[in-house]
């Protein structure tokens, strides 16, 4: 600490004083986060090593973790969640990127209106939009009536009682809701790209397609990485759509991991230890995927 050799009247150097002030400002937040976040996380970890119904919990080591590999329902919900991740996230991010690029056009009129319209879905309540989607895709719902009246189908499609169409409805709902959110991130990122870069590209004779792939996407890499990690995190924890739109879907084929955890905790005889263990598995999965994405995408290393 050779730098802190300069002393002032009250015995603290200027740098030490600034450090101390900084820590004093941070202290309340640190305390709060320790009590509200870290402590419950530690207690939940301890809970995941216990088992029992209701209030009668007893220590059991890692049996909860080994048990989950024999749990067919858990494996099924894991598969469903990953299915949503693999299909929905790329579609949504590409769509958001396309919208952002289109709306970044300097000569487009009513940009504000379009941006608001695309962003508005993510301001809706999760539960109400899921319920509305459910009634839209009911057997006698709006979607079936429109499709029948324009002659695309001859009898109503059972959207929510067939496995793959139920999954499709969930994916559609997710894309509708979150595209605007990611689009806003990309728009912000695009503002950082100097217009002169595009001008130079235009002079060199690059088509919009080439500009998009060779200039926009590489320059937006940090933002794309951010939205990819956030979307992965959100999709792995998917809950509301599974509960309100399809109620786990025909025979648990659209149930997500979080929905299964909820059922374990509140529907049957409550088994909070096992549910806690499953919640930590989700944490581990998200951490692994985030790490992989950062290794693949972060060019700052």
């Amino acid at each position, binding site marked *: *600490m050779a730098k*802190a050799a300069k002393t002032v009247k009250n015995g603290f150097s200027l740098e*030490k004083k600034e*450090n*101390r002030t900084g*820590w004093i400002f*941070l*202290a309340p937040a640190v*305390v709060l986060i*320790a*009590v509200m976040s*870290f*402590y*419950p*996380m530690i207690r*939940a970890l*301890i*809970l*995941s090593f216990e*088992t*029992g*119904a*209701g*209030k*009668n*919990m*007893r220590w*059991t080591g890692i049996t909860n973790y080994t*048990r989950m590999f*024999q*749990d*067919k*329902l858990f494996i099924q919900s894991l598969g469903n969640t990953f299915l949503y991740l693999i299909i929905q996230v790329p579609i949504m991010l590409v769509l958001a990127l396309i919208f952002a690029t289109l709306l970044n056009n300097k000569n487009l009129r009513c940009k504000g209106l379009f941006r608001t319209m695309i962003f508005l879905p993510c301001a809706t309540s999760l539960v109400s939009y899921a319920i509305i989607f*459910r009634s839209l895709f*009911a*057997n006698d719902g709006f979607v079936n009536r429109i499709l029948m009246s324009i002659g695309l189908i001859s009898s109503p499609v*059972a959207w929510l*009682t067939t496995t793959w169409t139920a999954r499709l409805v969930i994916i559609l709902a997710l894309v509708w809701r979150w595209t605007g959110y990611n689009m806003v991130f990309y728009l912000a990122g695009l503002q950082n790209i100097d217009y002169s870069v595009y001008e130079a590209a235009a002079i060199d004779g690059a088509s919009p397609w080439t500009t998009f792939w060779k200039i926009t996407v590489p320059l937006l890499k940090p933002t794309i990485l951010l939205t990819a990690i956030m979307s992965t995190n959100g999709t792995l924890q998917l*809950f509301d759509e599974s*509960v309100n739109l399809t109620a*786990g879907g*025909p*025979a648990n084929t659209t149930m997500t*991991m*979080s*929905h299964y*955890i*909820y059922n374990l*905790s*509140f*529907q*049957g*005889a*409550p*088994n*909070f230890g*096992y*549910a*806690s263990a499953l*919640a930590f598995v989700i944490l581990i999965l998200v951490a692994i995927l985030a790490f992989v994405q950062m290794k693949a995408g972060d060019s700052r290393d």
Partner: protein
Amino acid sequence: MKKLLTLALAGATAVSLCACGSSASTGTAASTAASTAASAAASTAASAAVSAAASTAAGGGSDELTVWCWDPAFNIYAMQEAEKVYQKTDPNFKLNIVETPWEDIQTALTTAGTSGDYSTLPDIFLCQDNAFQKNVQNYPDMFTDLTNSGVDYSQFGASKVAYSTVGGKNYGVPFDSGCVIGCYRTDILQQAGYTIDDFKDITWSRYIEIGKDILAKTGMPLLSARADETDPIMYMLQSAGASLFDEKGNPTINGNETLKTVMSTYKELIDSGILLQVNSWDEYIGTLTNGQVAGTVNGCWILASIQTAKDQSGKWDITNMPKLENVANATNYSNNGGSSWAVSTNTKNAELAEKFLAATFAGSTDFYATILPSSGAIATYIPAAKSDIYNEPQEFFGGDKIFSKIVDYSAKIPSNNTGVYYYEARSAIATANTNILNGADIDSELKTAQETVEFAMQGSGTSTQ
């Protein structure tokens, strides 16, 4: 700089360790842990239930009680009438009735019970009979013992009282009967050339036969049901006195011949087109009130919802349900649902709650006479069933004396075993049912269902009682 960092981290760790050590009971710790465990999933649902609860927890006032129940046309209406009856004895009496769906009540009970913090619970709440055993056995401290509360349990049907009796003690005041009936639109039956008596004491194959004919002549399915719910399967099973568990609490799903007959009957109902599948409760009620089906088979509490369609007055009638074939002990009677009132231990006025329930739901034949006509709340309170109003012809049902019919059927309901893992078994059967409807083999699906239930039972590690 490093020293300061170490100090700050040590301080933060010390704080969290202090919080560890000073927590008064594992209850508080478990509540934070439970909330984290569930937060990845249940934050929306649980916090909605808890915040609703916070604003409606047991009132501290002297003559006010908070009640949680669902269904405005049925339970809430009954409570409002009970309030009026009791206000004649105690003019200062007031009820704060909060409409809470059953799923939310169950969630609130589980959350309060596991955390040990009962302060969010109301004075009185309605509890499904099927869930009584599970809730009382898991959280015995949450329910007030009503055995010696002034409620005369001998005046209620024995099989009904059995639902809310745990370890020989009574924890609930029985309310409505869930006696299963077949309801039919007589005008549609007439169109196809049938009457209500053609449906009395029949078997399911005869039901399907008539149903196909009606479908061909009028284009109407005979009944509707929710795709993800197993109500029809459960009440068909109970009509033959069978259950998903034996008396010791072991699952009896795999190899259960009665259950196999039930599931194949259900498949036939769907394949023949006479059972219309819908996705939600509102859609189900919609099929009845919008005239999309020719009837339904369900607990008698469905009559309240049917009667909300005033334009269909005079066009309905009821009879008993069809029975299973080639099954021992098959009957035309069963039960679906029904609930009882429980008093939580969070109440500050247990005496008032007990007196209120004893004087109204367990004591007033006038009360039951009042609520009967518009809600169809059939009493399981035997003296009430003898009052004249039960023998009055009901205009909505073509002048038929439906209530005395239902009281008659109620006496013939076979009882069944529910137990702590009833809901796990129900959802396993729902999954099996959906797969069977899509062509899977019944035997292997039942085997999978049994394995799922056994897995859940072994996980909680409680011995079945």
